């Protein structure tokens, strides 16, 4: 009986119902989109940083991350290579040998990271090849060819075809020196990376540094990078105890923390929005209910208890909130899904925020059903909570008081 009464009330006062529906539906949509956009931009930041060079996971000797000197190198890279080759969860992997050297053009010497990479394997593991802006990317047969970051090339005052001298330390700590010709120049957009990194074919660099069968670490991608924690833990169990498998969450922990802080601030701002929404709904419901005071008084006079009245009004809002929950979720989720596939392009954002690791003008939304579900339920609960006070207030009036209420 209460349900049909509530339904009748909703259908009879169309204007009131539509406004309530619109208010909660729009709030649901807005909240879902806001969170999808925030998560999407965070994912984009991390994805850029991970995919440009770091990679989804590394295998290194325990202690290497604290002291990346020559004392913590993988001394038997072939052994790790074999383990990785036989691991079906790994999509692609490659060893890297990283060292700090002095690079010198004609005039100036600059301290830089020099990494020996397997050029063909890196195509799938990093964005090094995609970031080429001049000359050519490295090949597996290159010898004295070097691939330089654009800002490093500027600092050294060199261009494609220029000769540069490299002085570093071999792994036996004798001096390693060689001359290289700039084969290509890349620009990833990460300023620090572009101004301090140079790459050489690993098989050649190994002859200069005496690092044959030695690697600083292996970088790898899993088939299922979304379940990275589980994948990393499984991989760890197949490694000899002196090695560790770490994923991007650890490798880029500073960035992950920065994103977390940003999310917290995001939620703080959205909670202010919640407070506003809560009061808007409450005031709106309050006004609505009090305009129906005479009607409610009449119902009480006809024999309905205050409990019945509470039930009727609560059912009304429950029905409206459920409809807006469903409609809002469908629309919000569709928008999030669409913009995940077709990211919003904000031209100039990469240029403005390049030092924060933004390398693309595209900002996708993040479509995640769990997040969408809790977002929608939060607004639903907010709707319900906002109605409790007005209902309980009107229920305190007696039938006569309510009927005389102006």
């Amino acid at each position, binding site marked *: 009986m209460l349900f049909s009464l509530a339904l009748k009330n909703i259908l009879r006062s169309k204007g009131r119902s539509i406004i309530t529906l619109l208010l909660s539906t729009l709030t649901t949509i807005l909240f879902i989109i806001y969170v999808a956009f925030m998560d999407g931009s965070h994912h984009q930041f991390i994805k850029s940083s991970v995919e440009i060079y770091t990679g989804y996971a590394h295998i290194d000797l325990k202690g290497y991350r604290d002291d990346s000197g020559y*004392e913590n190198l993988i001394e038997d890279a072939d052994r790790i290579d074999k383990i990785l080759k036989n691991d079906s969860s790994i999509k692609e992997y490659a060893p890297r040998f990283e060292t*700090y050297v002095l690079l*010198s053009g004609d005039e100036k*010497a600059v301290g830089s990271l020099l990494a020996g990479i397997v050029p063909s394997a890196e195509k799938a593991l990093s964005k090094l090849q995609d970031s080429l802006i001049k000359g050519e990317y490295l090949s597996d047969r290159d010898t004295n060819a070097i691939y330089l970051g654009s800002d490093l090339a500027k600092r050294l005052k060199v261009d494609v075809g220029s000769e540069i001298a490299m*002085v570093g330390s071999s792994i036996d*700590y*004798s001096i390693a020196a*060689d001359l290289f010709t700039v084969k290509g120049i890349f620009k990833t957009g990460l300023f620090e990376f572009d101004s301090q990194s140079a790459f050489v074919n690993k098989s050649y660099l190994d002859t200069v540094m005496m690092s044959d069968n030695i690697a600083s670490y292996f970088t790898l991608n899993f088939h299922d990078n979304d379940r990275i924690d589980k994948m990393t833990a499984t991989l760890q169990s197949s490694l000899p105890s002196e090695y560790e498998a770490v994923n991007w969450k650890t490798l880029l922990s500073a960035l992950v923390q920065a994103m977390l802080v940003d999310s917290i601030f995001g939620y703080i701002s959205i909670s202010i929005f919640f407070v506003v929404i809560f009061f808007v709904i409450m005031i709106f419901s309050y006004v609505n209910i009090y305009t129906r005071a005479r009607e409610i008084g009449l119902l009480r006079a006809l024999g309905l208890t205050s409990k019945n009245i509470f039930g009727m009004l609560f059912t009304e809002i429950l029905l409206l909130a459920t409809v807006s929950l469903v409609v809002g979720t469908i629309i919000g989720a569709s928008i999030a899904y669409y913009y995940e596939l077709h990211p919003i392009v904000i031209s100039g954002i990469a240029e403005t925020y390049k030092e924060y690791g933004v390398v693309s003008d595209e900002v996708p939304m993040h479509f995640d059903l769990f997040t969408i579900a809790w977002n929608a339920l939060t607004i639903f609960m907010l709707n319900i909570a906002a109605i409790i006070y007005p209902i309980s207030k009107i229920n305190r009036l007696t039938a006569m008081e309510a009927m005389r209420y102006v």
Partner: protein
Amino acid sequence: MKYLLSLLLITLSLYSNEAQNIIKKLEKNLRGDYMYATMKMIVTSKRGKRTVKIESWSKGNDKSFIKILYPKKDKGITFLKIDNQMWQYIPKIERTIKIPASMMLQSWMGSDFTNDDMVKESSLEEDYRAKLLSKKGNSATLELIPREDAAVVWGKIIIDVDLKNAVPIKQTYYDDRMKKVRVMTYSKIEQHGTHRIPMVMELKPLDANKKKNRTKIIFEKINYDAKIDSSYFTKHALKRYSR
């Protein structure tokens, strides 16, 4: 009370003067106008042991020229230090490279010394304020705190001195947070001309990751008396004397 206080101040100032005099004497003994030396540097690390043979020429505290004699792979590599700047010549690529400031804290030739150690004309007397901590017979312990305007990387140095020979026995280096970071010990004192010199120096970093590391320098020949031609202290010398 006043009397006691002034007595204390006088004693303190006498102590600090005494400490400063010890450092002065020490530096005078160790430093000559010119110095020629050949030495062996033994670097021990987790990766094993490595010996480098070095020939060096220096003038005062701010000009020096170093040539690597051994291992064969590094033979002929030369270093020139003038004031706070350092250049390096590598015969294999026939290039002279100036070591930039950003690389100054990198290890020198894989040893526990940094490029900065090689370059800094750290004069204990000029850069530090000395305080006598203890004195017993011929040995004393001093605390050296950097002067406000001194460009040094250490928070303080504790130095044990052999007063009779005016040579250091042990130097403990602290960083700016007063954490012990490395210890240098000196031994095998020999007379060379008017100078008494510790012929063996050993540097040991105290970092937990470098437990096995140490760098030992053993002087083989040392000569304070011969004047060194000024041509050694020019950039041309890097290539010229590399052979």
